Every structure is written in C-alpha cells, then in structure tokens.
C-alpha cells in the first residue's frame, strides 16, 4: 500500500509519470542537438540560403526535396505553398523555438521562484495563500487554459511568452517553497538572522544560491513542454503569427495540402520539433541526476 501513499496527491502522480531517472549516460546526443539549435538560431541569417518570408525568385510552389523527381538543388528541402524555401524557414524557425522556449521558461521560472521563496521564507498566512493559489492553479487544464489566453491576447511572440509565464509557474513555486522551508531552519541562515542581516539580503545571499540547482533542473525540464505548447498554439493559429517562420506554423500551413502528398512540408518541421523536445527532455533528465544526487522526484 506504500505505493498508494506515495501517490496520494494528483500532483505527486503527475510528477511520477513525468519523471525519468534513467537515460543518464547520453548527454552527447542532446548536447549536440541543443548546441545545433542555438548555433542555427544565432546564425540563421548567415546559414539560410533565402529570405524565409519571401518566395524564391523564379521558383515554383510545392517543389519537392532535391533527391526527388522534380526537385532541384536550389531548394534542398523543397518549397511550400507560396514557393518559399523550406530549409530557410526551418533555419529561421529555430530562432522562434529557442526564443520562446528560453524566455517562456525564464518567465514561468521567475514567477515560480519569486512566489516559492516568499512563501517558504515568510511562512505563515503568506505561505498558506501562495500554496492555495498554487494548488488551485495545478487543478486547471493547462493546454486549454493556454489556448484560451492566447486566443484572447492575439497571436504574437510576446503574448505567448506571457501565456507560458502565467500557466507554467506552479511546479517551481511548489518545489522551491519546500526547499526554502528547510533552508530557513539551517544554521547559516539562523546565524545570519541573529547577526541582524536584513531579510532581502538573506534571501539574495543565502537562500537563492542554494535553490539555484533545483531551479535549473526544473527549468531544463520545462523547456521541452514550452516548445511543444508553442508549436501547438501556432498550429491552432493563436501562437506565432504568419509569415514568421515557426515550426508549428509551418505544420499548420501544410495541413490544407496534406492529401496532395506534399509530405516534406509536415515531416521536416515535425522532425525538428520532436528532435529538440527529445533533446531537451534527455538533457533535463541528465541534469537532474547531476545536480540532484539524492534523486528526489522533482
């Protein structure tokens, strides 16, 4: 019956199904993929052969990849419904994914960190209020809620980042609050209090550095979720607005011509999204084991 006790709360259940304690010995592949993503995103304007938002001059629409009949090496991975180069759009799409993935995670993590530290350190009714809010938030349907917010705010990169901050902060708040709760009782914090150090200074100098590892692990595990959700929102037309080259948007645009057999318009962006999310998840798992040797269920 111990397993039921451990699963007592739905949150514990969610953590359990999302947590992998293994696949620790493969940091090479995820590092390569993520490194490639950052590299491509930073140098998109150098690497991309064409402008991702304009049709190739003198090119055709729906041109297949170069190895297929009718393909040509001037558009290696083919062209889309407007005759734009798929490869260039993929390369620029890395920018959107990286930008949204990192800033979305940072905003959500920032809100969660702030609330978690405040709740854990101050305790009392503040703690109660923050934790009730967190519990309530955890009970909401994330994807639907994100879609709703994004639909109201309208398409746009900044708006998506706001939505992610609004939706994904709960896990950080909960875990970090627990961490701070025990840190608060530790000797070095007690001594600092006795020595008359001000509360903001204790939090900055003594609490924050000690929760940073946990924060990093949580953040690395959020990036993948954020990237998939961004692609989902863009796919539904409430994410990144056209003609911005985003992977989710490319899938969305390819949907109407799916039955015509233009497979390259869906397969390439899909592989990019999947690869990056897989790498982010693997990297997160690896980081968890590196930075969290006690192997708690984060």
């Amino acid at each position, binding site marked *: 019956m111990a397993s039921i006790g451990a699963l007592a709360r739905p949150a514990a259940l969610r953590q359990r199904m999302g*947590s992998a304690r293994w696949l620790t010995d493969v940091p090479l592949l995820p590092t390569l993929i993520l490194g490639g993503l950052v590299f491509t995103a930073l140098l998109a304007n150098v690497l991309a052969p064409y402008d991702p938002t304009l049709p190739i001059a003198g090119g055709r629409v729906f041109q297949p990849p170069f190895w297929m009949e009718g393909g040509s090496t001037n558009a290696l991975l083919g062209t889309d419904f407007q005759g734009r180069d798929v490869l260039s759009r993929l390369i620029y799409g890395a920018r959107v994914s990286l930008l949204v993935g990192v800033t979305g995670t940072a905003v959500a993590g920032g809100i969660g960190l702030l609330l978690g530290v405040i709740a854990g350190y101050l305790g009392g009714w503040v703690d109660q209020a923050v934790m009730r809010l967190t519990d309530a938030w955890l009970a909401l349907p994330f994807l639907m809620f994100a879609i709703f917010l994004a639909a109201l705010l309208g398409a746009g990169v900044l708006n998506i980042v706001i939505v992610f901050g609004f939706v994904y902060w709960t896990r950080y708040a909960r875990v970090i609050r627990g961490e701070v709760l025990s840190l608060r009782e530790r000797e070095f914090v007690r001594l600092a209090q006795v020595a008359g150090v001000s509360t903001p200074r204790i939090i900055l100098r003594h609490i924050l550095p000690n929760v940073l590892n946990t924060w990093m692990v949580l953040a690395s595990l959020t990036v993948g979720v954020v990237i998939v959700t961004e692609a*989902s929102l863009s796919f539904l037309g409430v994410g990144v607005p056209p003609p911005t080259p985003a992977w989710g948007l490319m899938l969305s645009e390819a949907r109407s011509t*799916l039955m015509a057999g233009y497979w390259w318009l869906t397969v390439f962006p*899909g592989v990019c999204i999947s690869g990056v999310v897989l790498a982010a998840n693997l990297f997160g798992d690896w980081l968890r084991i590196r930075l969290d040797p006690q192997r708690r269920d984060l």
Partner: protein
Amino acid sequence: MRRFVLTRIGYSAVSLVLLSLTIFVVVRATGDPAVLLIGPGASRDDLAQARTLWGLDRPWPEQYVTFLGNALRGNLGTSFQYRVPVRDLYFERLPNSLLLALVALLISLVLGVPLGIISAVKVDTIWDSISKIVAMFGLSVPNFFIGLLMINLFAVWLRWLPAAGIGTWQHLVMPAIALGWYFAASMLRLTRSSMLEVLDSEYIKLARLKGLPETVVIVKHAFRNALIPVLTLAGINLVIMVNVAVIIETIFAWPGIGRLLYEGISFRDFPVVQGLVVMAGGMIVGVNLLLDLLYAWIDPRIRYA
C-alpha cells in the same frame, strides 16, 4: 473523514473561483466583452443592447456574480456562429470526444502496461532499455506530429485509412493512436515504477520463498497490486484526453469538443471558447477532487496527515 472531505471540497471551490475570476478578468483586460459576445461587425445599437442584456454596464463585482451564477446554472452563452446555446453544442459533441478518448485509453493501456511490466520484471536488461527508449519517444514526439506522419503514410501513400471524418472504425484508428501515444508512454513509466516498488516488498519475497512459480508471483501477487495506481491514472487520463484532443481532432476533422474549440477560435466565436474552457476546468477540478477523496478512502493515513 468528514473534516477532510469538507477541506478538500473547499480547495476545489477555491480552484473554481480562481478559474472563473481569471477568465473574467482576462476577458475584460484584453478587450470589450460586448464585442466578443456579439461577434465582429456589430453595430453600435447592437453593442449597447448587448451591454444591457448581459449586464455589462453594471459594476465589475456585480458582473462577476452574474457570470458565476450563469456558469453554475450551465448557462454558457450562445454561439454566434451556430446560433444555439453553447451547452447544447457541448453535449452534442461530447459523445464523439468520449468515444475517441476511450479507444485512445484502451490503446495506451494495451501498449503501456505490458511494456511496463516487462521493463520492471527484466529490469536493467535490453528489454528495459527498449521500453525506456519507447517511453522517451512517447513523451517527446508531439501527438500532432504522429498524427500528420500517419496521414502521410496510411492515408496518402498506402491509402489504407481515411484521413479525416467520422463514421466507421477505420476513421478511429489514426486519431486514437495519435492521442493514445503520449499516454501509453506515461502508463509505461507508471506501471514500471509501480511494479518495481511492489516486487521489492515483503510479501513478494514471501511468495517466492514459498516456492511459487515466477509467473504466479508476478501475475497474481505483484501485478494485481501494482495495478491500483495504474487504473487510477487511466481514470484521470480519460478526462484529460477529452480536454487535450484539440489538435488531434482538428487534424482528423473529428467532430468532438476539441474541434469545437478550434472552430470557436477560428471564427472568433468567443462564447464557445469561454464555455469550453469553463467546462474543461470544472471537469478537471472535479476529477482531482474525486481522486483525493478516493485515495483518502483507500488509505486512512492520508486523512489524518
């Protein structure tokens, strides 16, 4: 127990108030609710009329109480795309979503549970590694990409299955697999960890010491107990599936709740979007409450914690 039940119900009520309050505030902070409710292209008179009708000329707290009262009575407004109450649309589409979710759930169980058991019984062998890789892919490759891949392969290239619509069992195959995919991976992981925990327990050691055959130990003693958390997760997953199938239902033109939400977004049919989010929130909060109570009923330690 009574105290515990009341506290839990209280928490759920807080969740619902927060959900409604957030929706209420966000709607008013981002635009004019009258425009959203009437639809684009409304005349000034229409808007004024709507404001009076919906009480939007009243102070905010009063508006919120009205909004909450309407939501509790199941009055979610009228779709301006279909010109029928959102509630009717919802219940018209719900059976389709449930059907899809049920089949997807079945697929996730059939795939996830056996793989999880094999993974736990043969822990740290090649079988375990294969299961881990399957689970990692399941959790990382987005379900909409699986759906699009399958359409490319089975509908466009091989022409085995219909790409969209509803009607025959063939229509169900691809959307159900695409939806069940992620959940199969989570089932696999939960089954594995739950089995590992049970296999490590005293009574399994006893069963083995008694000299029971390994299959009896695993099937009769270990699996039965390991199944409890798995079945619970299956229950929650069903509810979650109904509410997260938006993209799958959109890709496969499956006329469920998710597709309705997509239509709502595309036509800027605000009452539909708001109504569906309220319903989804209510459903998930309800399931979480049920689950908490169920656990407390099974395991008395939780009640007194």
